[in-house]
């Protein structure tokens, strides 16, 4: 039998101050990066504008394109032959036809490089759409968190739900911080990734809580902290294995999935690591802190 983790007895909860410090540092780095940069790097679907992907049969210098489209930002894409560029124009005016940008780019290129390029794809989003979308994304995430909070609160106790959701919220913030730090673009697929992570990273937490519930039934006299620690240790091999396997799959997506899905994959790669960490380092300690805080009061009530 191949085994990676057997008979582990780590005092996870004893290290809770260290974990909190790590979390605060992680959140702080993200926050500092965001404050420094002022804003996330939003994708087209959130900020509006036009991106045209153009392929040239021969080698073309980005400068040559910049000459004819001075207002555009131009990004070269790796390709096996010729040259390929993503040409981005800022957002069109309010209420303006979304396709104006595409026409501007093709007209300018047609003049400078007649017949030498093909438009591989383009996307235009009017300025109006972005704001609605950002609100929608935030609302969907909040509702998902509330839904999970209610579900876990019903299945366990409310503090378990609150701790799990707090941990997941922490994961979302840390992941967003990484997006700012590494200058990855936040687009619709990233929101999809974040919502998936909300569902996924709460899994690890539920597995631990489930074991706590089971252990509480059989070990009524034991110290709660010991039960929590044992529950984490008992499920640790499973936690590491499954996170590792899911991590493998999203890593494949990150490496081989191509340009379009890259931001999504980055969110998943970061989120799965943070999500695994937080179920041990954030969710469980929160439950313990709450329970400890309540204990003296409960005893006081009894004595009276």
């Amino acid at each position, binding site marked *: 039998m191949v085994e990676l983790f057997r008979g582990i007895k780590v005092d996870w909860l004893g290290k809770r101050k260290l974990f909190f410090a790590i979390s605060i540092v992680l959140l702080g780095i993200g926050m500092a990066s965001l404050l420094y940069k002022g804003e996330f790097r939003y994708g087209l679907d959130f900020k509006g504008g036009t991106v045209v992907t153009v392929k040239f049969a021969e080698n073309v210098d980005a400068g040559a394109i910049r000459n004819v489209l001075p207002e555009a930002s131009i990004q070269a894409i790796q390709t096996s032959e010729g040259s390929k560029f993503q040409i981005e124009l800022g957002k069109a005016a309010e209420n303006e036809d979304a396709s104006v940008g595409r026409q501007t780019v093709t007209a300018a290129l047609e003049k400078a490089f007649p017949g030498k390029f093909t438009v591989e794809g383009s996307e235009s989003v009017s300025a109006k759409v972005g704001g609605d979308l950002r609100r*929608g994304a935030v609302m969907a995430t909040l509702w998902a968190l509330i839904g999970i909070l209610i579900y876990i609160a019903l299945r366990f106790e409310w503090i378990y739900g609150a701790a799990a959701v707090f941990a997941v919220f922490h994961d979302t913030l840390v992941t967003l911080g990484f997006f700012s730090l590494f200058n990855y673009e936040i687009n619709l697929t990233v929101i999809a990734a974040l919502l998936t992570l909300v569902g996924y990273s709460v899994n690890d937490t539920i597995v631990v809580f489930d074991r706590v519930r089971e252990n509480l039934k059989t070990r009524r006299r034991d110290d709660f902290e010991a039960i929590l620690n044992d529950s984490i240790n008992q499920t640790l091999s499973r936690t590491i294995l499954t996170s590792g396997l899911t991590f493998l799959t999203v890593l494949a997506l990150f490496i081989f999935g191509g340009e379009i899905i890259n931001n999504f994959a980055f969110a998943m790669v970061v989120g799965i690591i943070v999500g695994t960490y937080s179920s041990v380092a954030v969710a469980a300690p929160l439950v313990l802190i709450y329970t400890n805080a309540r204990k003296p009061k409960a005893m006081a009530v009894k004595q009276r």
Partner: protein
Amino acid sequence: MSKRIRIRALIIVAVTIACILRFAGVPPSIEGLKKNIRLGLDLKGGTQLVLQVNVDDALKATTNQTIEALRAQMEKDSISVAQIVPTAVDTFEARGVDAAKDSDFRNMIEGTYSQEWEIVSSDSTAGKTYTVRMKMRTATELRSQAVDQALRTIENRVNALGVAEPVIQKRGGPGENEIIVQFPGLDDPEYVKGIIGKAAILELKLVQGTSFYSTRDAAIQQFGGILPANLEILESAKAEQGGSKVFWVVNKVAAVTGRDLKNASVSRDENGRPAVSFHLNAAGAQRFGDLTGANVGRLLAIVLDSQVVSAPRLNSRITDNGIITGGGAGFNPDEARDLALVLRSGALPASMTPLQEAVVGASLGADSIRHGLVASVVALGAVVAFVLFYYRASGINATVAMILNLVVLFGAMAYIGATLTLPGIAGVILTIGVGIDSNVLIFERIREELRAGKTAVSSVATSFSRVFVTLVDTHLAALISAIFLFWFGTGAIKGFAVTLVIGLVSNMFTAVFVSKTLFEIVLNRKERTDTLSI
């Protein structure tokens, strides 16, 4: 093998075969797969437009029609009024209503127009001024009708163009008035956009005077500087002989409109140039006959989207058919064909603003498919290699469960007609990862029970019943967020949410039912040797 296990095994085999036949066709083939798994535009290439229907246009048009009708009726009942002007898309003001006929006016609005309109305020300075507003219910109805009608019109036009497998749907919640249009395989949207975006409001209006004017001012001068309220000045659609556009003074009220059309087709004018001939329905023919009969010798402007296409002389009474020529400049054959098409398909009730436009070239889509396939194969390979190494023979169990999970996922997607998008492929890869999660949870529990000294049979039984509760909790929590994702998402993101939801549900089947049955088959065969390779 016990009867119970045999039945379970049969169910699994039946589900597997049914799913494979569902997504790969009968008999299974690559062609069948291509037919049953619908690819999104981001994978197969094509154009997607999101159009916002400017529904206020429909309100504005109704308000204007009402003003004209009211003006005519007041004239008939000799209630004098200084002005009736629209003040908002759904509101107009009647200024300077004859004080003596005040109650007549009120009765008119509260009688004939009470279904749709109400007087919201009145004030008595300088004659009586009434503010009349469209009722909320009417406005709401008009707005939703406008979107429905726009949808039908676009459908008609796209079908007439013969675009393959178009998707035309309403999108967004109430008040969003958006239409999403997809054209697979089309990577130059300009032409189609021109066709579907054309309002194509046809109006036949009598011309005042005998000719056009070269400037707007010149036209107004003919009326002493103030244009009468029942007239308007319209520009010509094309430049006339002089090389610039000209202006016509026409009646505001159209005698016949596009709504009276029965049919329109390409034909030729008397000089053999392309033209569009049209037929009117019975009501339209009646009105057209009255109009042309009473105005022989005058000019009739053919107005399309508020531009005068041509203004032929009425030589005799015409009833149910007519011809639209391109005026001095003439139509080219394509123009005539497109005009006939948009007239046949009906007018758009409101203008549309493109909110989003995405064009995916076929090569870009093919790239995405290739990337998605490579990532899926690598992910699957890595996971299979690991579980086989780590769990030995039981790894086969997990592998079978995982592959069945994918089979059921694709079967269900084909069954509900879901679209596979690039994010959807990411969802499939995640299903691999999350699916194996359930198996690992179970296997680790079995190992734990075995270490505690239980027999293989009882370890398997206990583990499955214990872990089942956990699996329900984790899957439901993940479902909650996937459902909110579906609710929030549009297009490709919805595709991702759908794969995720189906993947989660089918995983409950494969990780619990299939995996447990496989264990039982193995343990049953071994009979007395109470060991398990895990």
